[in-house]
């Protein structure tokens, strides 16, 4: 793709939810081409922030601006992946991966090619299952199909809304490896409540602390991502994160 992965600037972001202030004058710069993790406890408001970045909140819901470094809007540059794989049960794995063609009613020329989808799905280990329906797949395979759909969109920014939290431990570890491999070079913004997952995958971790979020504490892990979670320096950083997160409880 021609897009160079640029930074995402969030400026003076204010958001209230059910008359409760969640974000107040919150500014953050998410680095382009890196794996950014927003870490926070459940219900802290990290999901709302991600939705705002994705352009899913109507502008009247929040104040502030979310733009790329060159000031352009983010819309049309984003792919999104959630905890729920959101596959359509009546379509096969291949058709689900290519659903974007149908939804955008693209002409033959602009459409994502069948060949490209097949080869990506094969790389993800789904070749024997191309014509199967999601019902007969395991949670991990469904999430891999969702990953293929996300990657085929080929946008420079990928937002991950706790995509691994419904998976079992082994599948989750496999998905970590795959996702980390395939999303290299893209601007990734992932939200999670799991410090270990954050430490394993991230280039930069932003800790969001309630009740009213004004700024984020940043932690840059000392080594390159896809770290071994048994690494001693990682465990030390894990301690630090746990402490920061439990601080937020004391505040609320």
């Amino acid at each position: 793709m021609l897009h160079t992965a640029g930074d995402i600037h969030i400026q003076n972001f204010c958001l209230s939810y059910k008359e409760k202030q969640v974000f107040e004058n919150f500014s953050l710069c998410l680095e382009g081409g890196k794996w950014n993790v927003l870490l926070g406890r459940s219900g802290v408001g990290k999901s709302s922030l991600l939705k705002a970045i994705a352009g899913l909140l109507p502008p009247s819901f929040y104040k502030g601006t979310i733009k790329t470094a060159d000031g352009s809007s983010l819309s049309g540059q984003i792919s999104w992946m959630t905890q729920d794989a959101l596959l359509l049960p009546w379509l096969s794995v291949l058709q689900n991966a290519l659903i974007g063609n149908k939804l955008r009613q693209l002409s033959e020329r602009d459409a994502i090619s069948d060949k490209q989808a097949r080869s990506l799905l094969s790389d993800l280990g789904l070749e024997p299952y191309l014509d199967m329906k999601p019902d007969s797949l395991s949670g991990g395979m469904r999430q891999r199909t969702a990953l293929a759909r996300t990657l085929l969109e080929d946008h420079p920014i990928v937002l991950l809304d706790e995509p691994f939290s419904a998976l079992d431990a082994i599948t989750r570890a496999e998905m970590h490896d795959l996702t980390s491999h395939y999303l290299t070079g893209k601007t990734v913004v992932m939200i999670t409540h799991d410090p270990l997952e954050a430490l394993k995958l991230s280039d930069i971790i932003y800790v969001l602390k309630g009740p009213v979020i004004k700024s984020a504490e940043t932690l840059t892990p000392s080594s390159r991502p896809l770290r071994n979670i048994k690494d001693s320096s990682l465990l030390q950083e894990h301690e630090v994160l746990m402490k920061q997160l439990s601080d937020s409880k004391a505040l609320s």
Partner: protein
Amino acid sequence: MIKFIRPFAIITGLLLAWQALVYITEAPPYILPDPLAVSQTLYRRLDTLINHAGITFLEIILGFLFGSLLGCCSALILATVKSARDWLTPVLVITQSLPVFALAPILVLWLGYGLPSKVAMTVLIIYFPVTAAFYDGLRRTPKDWQALAKVMNAKPMAFLIHVRIPLALPSLSSGLRVAMATAPIGAIVGEWVGSSEGLGYLMLHANGRMQIDLMFAALLILSIMAVSLYLTTDHLLHRLLRHLSLDDHKTR
């Protein structure tokens, strides 16, 4: 095996109870004829009964088809056009709060004694349940899917066709089941108010001439027809949903 025997056991039980009721109450044949007398009449007047049943059958089927079609169209308009929703919902509620039976004489006056007034009656009875069920299903497109469609830049019409309508099919099919179960009411009421053929007409006619056994025979035919229509519809809808892997509302 027991599943196969059960319907016969139930029917035999009902017939025995009926016979017992005649025996205990010593009801004269012009109040409650016994099963044997009814079956004799059924056999003797089978030609007449079948002819009238054919008319009623046609009314039910046509009413069901037109009513379902009209209901689906209304639901689609309600779900896609915002202003239609605000204007049409009150109209829908008003038409539905009016007892349809009260309209029957007017329909006969306007549309005559023939088929159209009965079909119109059936349409009126099933229109609302179909519209309400389908509209409800269309409104309940999962939030995550709406978000994904927005991020994927989906065309609203394509999203409606490829995602929202299929996901609303389980709701629509419950509406269609209710419709098929209530459609005979419309046809019969229509025939009672004014007609020269059909099972409703035959029953009214037989009643006037104290031919209670013929009345019961007509009732028997009607219930067999209604039950088989319902079971067929139920079976077909079930197969359709299973074919689309939607039978237990899986959306993952």
